[in-house]
């Protein structure tokens, strides 16, 4: 029988039990910590900073686009705004968002380990990340970059007069932080699992994070070397990508998207990981089709490497290459759809409870589905030629990255907040802001689908007057979305200090991370757990979880 006696509720200890937050205090105990939970929090602070920074640029752009001819900035400044928005959001928020914060925090606990395989490397990766971030901010302070986050050549290597190299160096540095994190996670999942925790007993979160880590270690080095080549061409003016010097700009696009398309899956697989935890918990049912969901994560990671050419349908790719990439892009929709169907089937006939994390998770499924479906439009050659470089593309990937990843990130933060902080957040306010985020998001980005379909190009500081109504709607949505992001920041900080104490397992769910105290002690478990049950086995843990 699968009884669980990992952590007996203690009879009121005389002194409060030491946890990872109280075990050591002072600034130095944080700056030199090797505890995966503390490093996770260091990342939370850093990426929250970058998120609001990048979001601020987005808001400025939306304000500028209130009027057809624009009214706040010159065109060059506008170029720099969307570039810095993209660079900061992609490399300093989205890529590290879930893996480095929530992943860092819960992954070792979920597999019953005391820490990641290489704790010092983990801390090093945070320092490298901050160094990369500071370098990029330095490029911004010096005057910014105007190439777009995609650094297309030859503009980036020969013509742009902005701080391309500084920003590229910042991204390159941050890339090494990604590589170290991915390496750490893979080694941890292979070698640090608790006794009895076989691969098919792992929570889906682990499978998806593992798939993400594979992409991190395989794709990021290619980005590093591509950025290095840009730097070399720019500094020495020797031909690599610039056609005037004998290079091939399309090769740059191939190499850039060989990283940057898988990078989309670096962003969304961890989001799927979070949602795959939240939905079973608030449906009180094991995830439907465990193996299908687990393998679909791996399939996405593998197929994700074979579709980069769909970013270049109009860049002079051969018709055969374009057709192949189009076909493969359709293929990658299959594992994504399997996930959506399985999440839905998990909720079907479950006792669904609409707590805040579940609201975010359902929002994720809805928005990810729209983002994914419009991705299929873009994978179709004919439609893609029509909407290439329009707001349709912008709307599509924001549905995946903001509607998908940011929703799941917020859902995950709420879901694990009791474990992280040991405090409960105000439920009503949280539900209200989840709703605000969902509405604000759709109001911001749905009009952009229409704008793009009607032909409004991306990255322009002005537009024809007939597009104004939709642009105003989008800007209005962005302001609502902004409020939806600021409110959780405020009440979560409030809850950290004044919130109600959280029980060890507030959601009465099955994962190992809920079988330690909230907040957990330094080494997570009093004793190494021995796992004899499958993931999400509510039936086996019925008595322990008091599920009637």
């Amino acid at each position: 029988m699968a009884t669980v006696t990992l952590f007996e509720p203690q009879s009121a200890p005389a002194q409060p039990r030491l946890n990872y937050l109280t075990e050591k205090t002072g600034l130095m105990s944080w700056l030199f910590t090797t505890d995966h939970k503390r490093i996770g929090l260091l990342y939370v602070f850093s990426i929250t900073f970058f998120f609001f920074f990048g979001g601020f640029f987005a808001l400025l752009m939306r304000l500028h686009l209130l009027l057809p001819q624009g009214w706040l900035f010159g065109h060059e400044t506008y170029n720099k705004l969307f570039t810095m928005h993209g660079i900061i959001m992609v490399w300093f928020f989205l890529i590290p968002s879930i893996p480095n914060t929530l992943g860092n925090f819960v992954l070792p606990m979920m597999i019953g380990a005391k820490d990641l395989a290489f704790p010092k490397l983990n801390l090093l990766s945070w320092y490298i990340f901050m160094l990369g971030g500071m370098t990029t901010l330095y490029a911004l302070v010096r005057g910014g970059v105007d190439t777009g986050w995609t650094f297309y050549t030859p503009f980036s290597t020969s013509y742009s007069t902005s701080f391309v190299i500084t920003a590229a160096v910042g991204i390159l540095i941050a890339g090494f932080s990604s590589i170290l994190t991915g390496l750490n996670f893979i080694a941890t999942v292979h070698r640090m699992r608790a006794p009895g925790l076989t691969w098919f007993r792992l929570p889906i979160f682990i499978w998806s994070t593992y798939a993400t880590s594979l992409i991190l270690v395989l794709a990021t080095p290619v980005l590093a070397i591509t950025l290095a080549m840009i730097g070399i061409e720019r500094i020495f003016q020797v031909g690599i990508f610039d056609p005037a010097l004998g290079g091939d700009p399309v090769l740059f696009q191939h190499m850039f998207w060989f990283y940057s398309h898988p990078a989309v899956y670096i962003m969304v697989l961890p989001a799927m990981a979070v949602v795959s935890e939240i939905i079973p918990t608030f449906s009180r049912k094991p995830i439907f089709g465990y193996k299908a969901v687990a393998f679909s994560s791996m399939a996405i990671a593998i197929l994700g490497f074979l579709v980069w050419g769909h970013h270049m349908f109009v860049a002079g790719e051969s018709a055969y290459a374009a057709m192949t990439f189009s076909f493969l892009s359709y293929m990658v929709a299959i594992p994504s759809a399997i996930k959506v169907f399985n999440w839905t089937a998990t909720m079907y006939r479950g006792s669904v409870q609409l707590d805040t994390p579940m609201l975010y998770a359902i929002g994720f499924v809805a928005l990810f589905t729209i983002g994914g479906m419009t991705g299929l439009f873009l994978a179709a050659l004919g439609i893609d030629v029509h909407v290439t470089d329009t707001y349709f593309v912008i709307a599509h990937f924001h549905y995946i990255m903001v509607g998908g990843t940011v929703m799941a990130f917020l859902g995950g933060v709420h879901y694990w907040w009791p474990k992280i902080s040991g405090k409960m957040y105000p439920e009503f306010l949280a539900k209200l802001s989840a709703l605000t985020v969902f509405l604000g998001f759709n109001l911001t980005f749905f009009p952009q689908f229409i704008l793009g379909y009607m032909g409004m190009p991306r990255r322009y500081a002005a537009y024809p007057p007939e597009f104004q109504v939709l642009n105003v709607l989008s800007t209005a949505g962005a302001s609502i979305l902004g409020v939806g992001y600021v409110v959780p920041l405020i009440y979560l900080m409030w809850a950290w200090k004044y919130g109600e104490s959280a029980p060890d397992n507030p959601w009465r769910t099955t994962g190992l991370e809920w079988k330690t105290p909230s907040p957990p002690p330094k080494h997570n478990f009093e004793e190494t757990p021995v796992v004899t049950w499958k993931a999400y086995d509510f039936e086996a843990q019925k008595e322990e979880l008091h599920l009637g």
Partner: protein
Amino acid sequence: MADPIALALREQFHSAEQQRETSTVGMWIFLITEVMLFGGLFTAFSVYRMSHPAAFDQGSADMEFWMGAVNTAVLICSSFCMAMAVHSAEKGKNGRLAFFLILTILIGLVFLGIKFTEYYLHYHDQKLPGIVFHDTSPDAAYVQMFFVFYFLMTGLHAFHMIIGEGILGAMLFRTLLGSFSERYHTPVELAGLYWHFVDTVWVFLFAIFYIPGAHMK
């Protein structure tokens, strides 16, 4: 004296065995990332070689073939010494371990010496793209591109060699301190993996840069 294994066991692991296996997995993953890093350059090089075969052959004919060939032999010798060092570590023979580490370091320095001599000769022949490059052939732009990749790739390789020398130096230092034994010598094994990887990269670099134009001398 305290048990060296207990001292070397980090708090996140349950056993020395788990620690050894995990470190090895970590090193292999790191080497895979290295393959991808060099892989990007190999891909770009191959693309341009396919488009400009004549110019790339001409660039290759400007290589110091014999220096490259000798350097290949030098690195294979260093790999042999590294393998002997790891073998000695496994047997717990610290004297032999130190001897072979020193030998590997010295042979690595010989490689770097020859490499930088070559660089100097290219500079002397005005084949240093972006700084001083002189070529009169109609394909000059693509000959220069050959040299761009040559310097990028062998430069990145030489950088890895220099890091490797540092790692081997650290291993030697720890050997002399008596940190390693028959039961605990994982760092030496991992340094060996890294060293062999860097040597293997060179074999490919030799094949793509030196051999194609060797017959044109």
